[in-house]
């Protein structure tokens, strides 16, 4: 971007003076130095872009200084996996951010499986420092507007000092931190998760009602089990268990002790109702008998229904006929509570946006999130992208886009979109021989962390081009119709998309026959397994929209499910490899089998052209020898002969050449030079 042009622009528009103290220009402004902001900072820094990360607090990840309130992260920190594969290990590391530094991992700050929350800002500081990211702390952006001119669109951010930041691209990484509330009569009597005491002593012998059944609600309930007299939890929907829904945002087993005390009838319990229809009323019970002892006033909170409330009455000291127990004698929550606590999660802060820059509310998640395109650009706000938790509307309640271990990959995808759109660089790809596609897909299936964490959202794309293909990693599936404009790659001969997905059937996930083992029944797999979709052209937006229920992609020409695997190792020759090979052969309409040199020789002589594998290997001087019978005799004779090193132009190679030759692996005299 040309700073002089922007200066001219601001002078003309007369907003602020162009003094260097108060005006800043950047190609990329990242708002927020939390995990997604720093993650984007790394990618921008690696490609040497002009960027700045703006953060209102004095350190990174300040959300985690306060939340979760009971200080235990539920993102797993699995250090030991039995594998040295860094990419694979990220499948089980939910806290680290992506970087080129192999040891810049969360495990450096904590070895706990469920780490304490304090470790996270610590890790983020480490990450910021070691990668030398440009973060400006203490900048509290209170206002964002867009400027459109002939030369394009810009976002102008104004901070608490009145300084302005002019940004060609705005990357919102502000997270979710505004507590979500629901309006009902008496909602003012409710305490919030953000401000409750976390000392169990303060709840001694109290009856507590918690609004919400998410992880924050259960985390709170769990902390009170030993002190509260009873804990009730109420929300619109029944509790959703993460191990049943495969959604990590649903109730995690680490927080679910209340389920035990509820099901074993230990005075705690869960109830469903629409929170908009409830009312909380306060009753003050005067203690008439012994006014001299202790408190003489006792405030009790009653949960009732809005429809029982009489006109004009407020939430204080309601009449007996306004209480539910008056109407329904066995009403489940007829007894009063000492406290009502709201644990309903957080919403996106929409308040800082001018009309020109405000992304619309999402259709899902009760509009708590901004609505974004499949490539995370705000709807109606070109050049403004949403990163991190706030971008979760794309995969709300399905995948991991709202969590560090998911959005670190979507941030990378956004960066790739930016690199193409603003710098003309194609989405990175690997060019492969079609005969090498099978092992390559298996490699990704067995190690890739992006499609594994962001299942059903990010997928690998294979662009078929005859005897070659291009392999693109981790493209946002819903953006497929825009593949060309987002990635710079064209579809010529069809494409294969690799997705990891769960079965969509609700089954007993601990019951018998929960897993399939016969590969022909792979389409019934319930657990995470690879699925390949083949299209002969790009799906249209309409086709994506009308995709079959529960599918990440529209109906393809051919589909291939790889049977779920207990070990998540998809390498079994009969059950995994060969069915995949047949599928690939069908997609490219070509025999992709391996052949030994002898077969290649025969097929080369009996056909005008041998199969592709022979063309790629044998005909280029590299064949595969069927070497099974090489006996010890050969080696004994070789090794006992002192005369094997003969005069050779490549003196230092000759010993090896001899060995290879006698082992049936003769050296070609011309060694192809690499690089």
């Amino acid at each position: 971007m040309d700073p002089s042009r922007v200066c001219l622009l601001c002078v003309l528009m007369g907003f602020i003076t162009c003094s260097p103290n108060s005006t800043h220009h950047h190609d990329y402004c990242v708002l927020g130095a939390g995990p997604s902001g720093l993650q984007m900072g790394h990618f921008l820094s690696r490609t040497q872009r002009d960027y700045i990360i703006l953060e209102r607090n004095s350190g990174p990840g300040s959300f985690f200084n306060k939340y979760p309130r009971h200080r235990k992260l539920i993102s797993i920190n699995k250090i030991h996996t039995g594998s040295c594969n860094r990419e694979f290990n990220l499948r089980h590391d939910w806290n680290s951010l992506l970087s080129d530094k192999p040891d810049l991992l969360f495990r450096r700050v904590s070895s706990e499986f469920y780490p304490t929350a304090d470790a996270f800002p610590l890790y983020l500081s480490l990450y910021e420092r070691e990668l030398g990211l440009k973060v400006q702390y203490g900048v509290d952006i209170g206002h964002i507007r867009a400027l459109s001119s002939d030369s394009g669109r810009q976002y102008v951010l104004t901070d608490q000092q009145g300084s302005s930041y002019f940004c060609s691209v705005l990357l919102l990484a502000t997270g979710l931190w505004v507590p979500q509330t629901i309006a009902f009569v008496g909602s003012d009597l409710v305490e919030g998760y953000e401000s409750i005491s976390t000392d169990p002593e303060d709840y001694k012998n109290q009856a507590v009602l918690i609004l919400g059944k998410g992880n924050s609600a259960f985390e709170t309930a769990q902390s009170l089990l030993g002190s509260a007299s009873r804990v009730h939890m109420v929300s619109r929907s029944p509790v959703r268990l993460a191990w049943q829904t495969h959604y990590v945002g649903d109730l995690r087993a680490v927080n679910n002790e209340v389920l035990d005390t509820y099901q074993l009838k230990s005075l705690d319990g869960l109830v469903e109702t629409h929170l908009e229809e409830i009312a909380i009323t306060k009753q003050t019970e005067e203690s008439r008998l012994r006014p001299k002892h202790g408190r003489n006033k006792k405030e009790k909170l009653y949960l009732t229904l809005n429809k029982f409330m009489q006109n004009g009455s407020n939430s204080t000291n309601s009449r007996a006929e306004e209480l539910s127990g008056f109407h329904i004698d066995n009403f489940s929550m007829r007894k009063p509570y000492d406290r009502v606590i709201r644990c309903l999660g957080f919403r996106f802060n929409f308040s800082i946006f001018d009309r020109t820059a405000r992304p619309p509310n999402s259709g899902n998640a009760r509009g708590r999130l901004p609505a974004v395109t499949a490539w995370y650009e705000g709807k109606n706000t070109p050049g403004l992208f949403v990163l991190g938790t706030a971008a979760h509307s794309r995969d709300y309640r399905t995948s991991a886009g709202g969590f560090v271990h998911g959005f670190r990959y979507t941030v990378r995808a956004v960066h790739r979109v930016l690199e193409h759109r603003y710098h003309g660089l194609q989405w990175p790809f690997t060019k492969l021989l079609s005969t090498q596609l099978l092992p390559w897909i298996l490699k990704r299936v067995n190690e890739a962390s992006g499609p594994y964490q962001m299942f059903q959202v990010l997928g690998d794309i294979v662009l078929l081009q005859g005897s070659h293909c291009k392999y693109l990693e981790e493209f946002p599936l819903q953006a497929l119709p825009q593949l060309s404009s987002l990635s710079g790659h064209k579809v010529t001969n069809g494409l294969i998309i690799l997705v990891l997905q769960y079965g969509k059937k609700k089954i007993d996930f601990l019951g018998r026959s929960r897993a399939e083992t016969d590969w022909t029944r792979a389409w019934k797999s319930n657990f995470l397994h690879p699925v390949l979709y083949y299209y002969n052209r790009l799906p249209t937006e309409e086709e994506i929209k009308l995709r079959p229920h529960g599918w990440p992609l529209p109906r393809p020409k051919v589909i291939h499910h790889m049977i779920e695997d207990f070990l998540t190792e998809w390498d079994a020759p009969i059950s995994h490899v060969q069915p995949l090979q047949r599928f690939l052969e069908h997609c490219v309409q070509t025999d992709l089998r391996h052949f030994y040199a002898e077969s290649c020789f025969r097929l080369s002589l009996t056909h005008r052209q041998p199969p592709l594998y022979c063309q790629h290997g044998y005909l280029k001087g590299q064949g595969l020898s069927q070497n099974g019978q090489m006996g010890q005799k050969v080696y004994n004779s070789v090794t006992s002969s002192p005369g094997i090193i003969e005069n050779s132009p490549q003196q230092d190679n000759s010993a090896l050449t001899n060995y290879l030759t006698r082992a049936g692996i003769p050296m070609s005299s011309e060694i192809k030079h690499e690089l």
Partner: protein
Amino acid sequence: MALWPSVAVLLLCAASGGCLEKANASNLIEFTAADFYHKLYSGKMMFMYFEREGNNLTKQNSFSLGCSSAILRDEVRYVHTDADLSAMEKSVKGKKDIVLCYVSSLGTREHRSIMETAFVYGSKYQFILITGGPVLKHLGLVTSSPSARVWVLHCTDHRSDRCPLTPMRKPVSTLGLHSFLQLMDAPLLTELHEDPSQIPPSQFPHQLVPQLFLFSLPETEALDKENANTLAGKLRGLAQVLGSVAVQTPQLYNAAYRLPGKVLAYFHRRKYFISCIIFCVHIFLSDQFDDEVAASVYLKRGMDLDMEVFTELNRQNFHSVVAQSSLTVALFYLKWDAASMAFLEAFVEVAESLLDGDVDDVQMCAVNCGEWTDLCAAESDPSDPPFPFRPITAFPTVLMLRPREPARRYGGMLTSQTLGRTPAGIDVLGSYLGSVPPLPSLILTHNPSAAEIYQYPPRLPISAPSVLQWVQRVEEGGETAAGALGDDNWPPVAPFYDFLGVMDHNDPSSARQQRPKQEKSEGETREGGGEDGGVNTSSNATDIISSDAPI
């Protein structure tokens, strides 16, 4: 060539029993053996029964199913436990063989195939149909398999307690069953007095059955025959075994085989092992593998390779290890890639020989790219020097690494066979000309513009002038082609498993695109279910707070 007439006759016998005879016997008996053989050869036999009965598909089906249910009642028995089966074996011992069929559910295509077969062969074999039960254990099925299985229990001339059984390995289909039962009935060993090259490939219905020729020498004929019989017993249901006192075949071959659709291949005495592997791979794994390399790797899956012979090479130690030796040879492989694993075996042997030979200026490394993914992707730590090679994208790859030099990719040929004198050469000639000509033989092929193959007249002496003349005649079109090359189009050989078709069949709506919504397009679309994705079962109906579950 005594086999074929007997096959034809057998099929006649079989077809003259059961339901068909009553329905339409006169038509069938009109065939002579020659007619029958002709029909068999042309591959039309299986449709004949049905064509006579009615000309449209529905009629055929109702006919065959009607017939099938008659058989089901009268002829096809059911067993549940192993004791039931044992009793059944006793009752037919010395009289009949048993065809035992397992289907997971009735009414499937496989079930129909079995019933059709029972209908044709019902008088010759005792048919048993099972859909489960403890007897499966005796048959070696651990859990109920979704696909049908068939076994033949040889009870006719077996004296021991239980009848030995032969499983059918191919997928169950009418044609496959037919072929299998025919093979069960063919003599174990067919004796030939011709050279294998004179014997045509297996014909219908055995066109998918490999042939194995065992050559015998006059002086050892009795012993050879005994061995051949034993082998034939082991290969029953898998291959046709033909014993031959070979007349023309040179003595350096001791056996030959012909795989379906392939030309004859010889077991060279020196390369016996390879031939055995190819044949065994085909025999035992052709149902499971299309890929010869994958099959041979699978066959050796129990053998552990000694990976200790390699120097460990990874991202951290790369530069220091390479600096240790004037030459480092590194194999980059993936363990699920058959070519990698086939090559790895040879590579281990090379490394072993270097160790044994005390060659210390070369160190051998094998890098598992499924584990050291960053090294294989040439991704070095930003603080370290870069790796001297580009990302590995083809497997296996062998790199020659020297200290402070860019890597060189080993581009050598991985075989040393001089193929002109190997069985492959004969194989190629046979493919060109249909039979092996007297050697030496001069062939003109791979003419850039055409697929034709020309053979230099065998009786003409090979001299420069006459060869030149011959080539000129070929160019002018004055010679008749002796054969043609196969085309250069290589479509997939194996059928792929059509999951979409299976899903449509089993759960028709699951894979269907949604219809465009007419109304309420806005409010109804909810990606990922939205907040109200869960169903509130109680409060909608009563409009009161549901109490917790009743006790």
